[in-house]
């Protein structure tokens, strides 16, 4: 898979620093799973984080901090790998996809596809720790176009299957896109087949036209 569109530096830095909202973080998790280039970039940014952690002036700890920690370790039993989710968990209950479900979405709750217009389906993705995060999936039929819209803040899109073109560029499976209020676009799916995307929205989508706004309202945007 040749990935041509990656998250930009500012987004990667916010991910590495841990300051992204949950929805955006999930989108980056999914992109990183499929993108060795960005994993390498992240490794460097994590090293920057480690270096900056080391150069912080140490704060005074409580006098019994180490013994408390050792006591907690003793109570918890021997060192063991824990909290490791099984790699193939989480497919149950999710709708069928033409590609494997991203591991990062294992704990997410994804309902059945819902109709939102001719050849257009959507799906709310519920994050276990952040049910309010506006994350959803779109499945748009070959040749269909989404209503023209812009964004009050920030929308991230990860293409899982197929391809779309919004006039700025073509986005294929594995590609990542970030749009904001400066982008007003009308993504159009390529003729070859359906396109399935994962999207995270901070703020709202702003659709042009009353019908489109109604569609947007139906998916909570």
């Amino acid at each position, binding site marked *: 898979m040749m990935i041509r569109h990656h998250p930009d530096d500012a987004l990667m830095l*916010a991910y590495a620093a841990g300051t992204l*909202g949950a929805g955006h973080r999930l989108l980056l998790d999914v992109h990183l799973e499929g993108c060795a280039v960005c994993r390498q970039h992240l490794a*460097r940014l*994590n*090293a920057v984080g480690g*270096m900056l952690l*080391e150069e912080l002036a140490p704060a005074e*700890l409580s006098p019994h*901090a*180490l013994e408390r920690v050792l006591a907690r370790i003793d109570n918890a039993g021997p060192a063991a790998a824990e909290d490791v989710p099984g790699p193939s968990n989480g497919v149950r209950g999710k709708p069928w996809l033409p590609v494997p479900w991203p591991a990062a979405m294992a704990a997410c709750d994804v309902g059945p596809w819902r109709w939102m217009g001719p050849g257009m389906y959507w799906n709310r993705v519920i994050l276990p720790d952040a049910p309010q995060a506006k994350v959803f999936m779109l499945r748009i039929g070959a040749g269909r176009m989404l209503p023209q819209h812009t964004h009050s803040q920030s929308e991230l899109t990860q293409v899982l299957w197929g391809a779309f073109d919004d006039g700025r560029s073509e986005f294929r499976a594995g590609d990542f896109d970030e749009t904001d209020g400066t982008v007003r676009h009308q993504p159009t799916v390529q003729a070859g087949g359906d396109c399935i995307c994962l999207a995270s929205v901070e703020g709202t989508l702003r659709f042009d036209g009353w019908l489109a706004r109604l569609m947007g309202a139906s998916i909570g945007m």
Partner: protein
Amino acid sequence: MTGLRQSSDIDPARHRARAPYLSVAMLPDIPEHAPSPELLSQLLASVGANADRQAFAALFKHFAPRIKSYLMRSGSSESQAEEFAQEAMVSVWKKAAGFDPAEAAASTWIFAIARNLRIDHFRRLGNRMEQLACDPHDETLADGADPAPTPEQQLFGLECERAVRSAMAALPPEQQLVLRLSFYEEHPHARIATELGLPLGTVKSRVRLALNQLRRRLDGMQS
């Protein structure tokens, strides 16, 4: 930030040494200046491979006060930061078996654990992490992904750490500041704007500029 120096007259090492039930009676004899990255990696590997409590105590001495500082920098109270640092070190102990010194520097690995715990920490406190653009109505929260970086995220280990260190040192001070604030602050963009006297809208381009410079230096070193 109040209370940071409250207990500066107490020597923590002495109190720890007196505790009756500890299997670590004394802190390992490590130099007062910062231990080398190589030593830290060996210590962490030894915790993972041998459940080495001496090594853990040395890591604790180096990292726990810095993890506490990391949380206090992002606005946590001293007691919250203390609890957080202890929790993070418990996590380091539990996950140490997954650490491979060939893949990551100890500081990189421990940072990733502390960072992911901080995400959880702020979620539990109900604080909202900074959004790319701030929306008072948006209640998006941070999720807790697996704190341990995967091997693929740690391609360079100590070499990467060394390269990043010298690349950072070569950056102009303003760009170093931008990166520091990006990592330490809970609301980095607002803080960067204040510190540099910039409108909020131009912060992102400063962040990109700093990262671009860092990347160019790293690419120059690693090609």
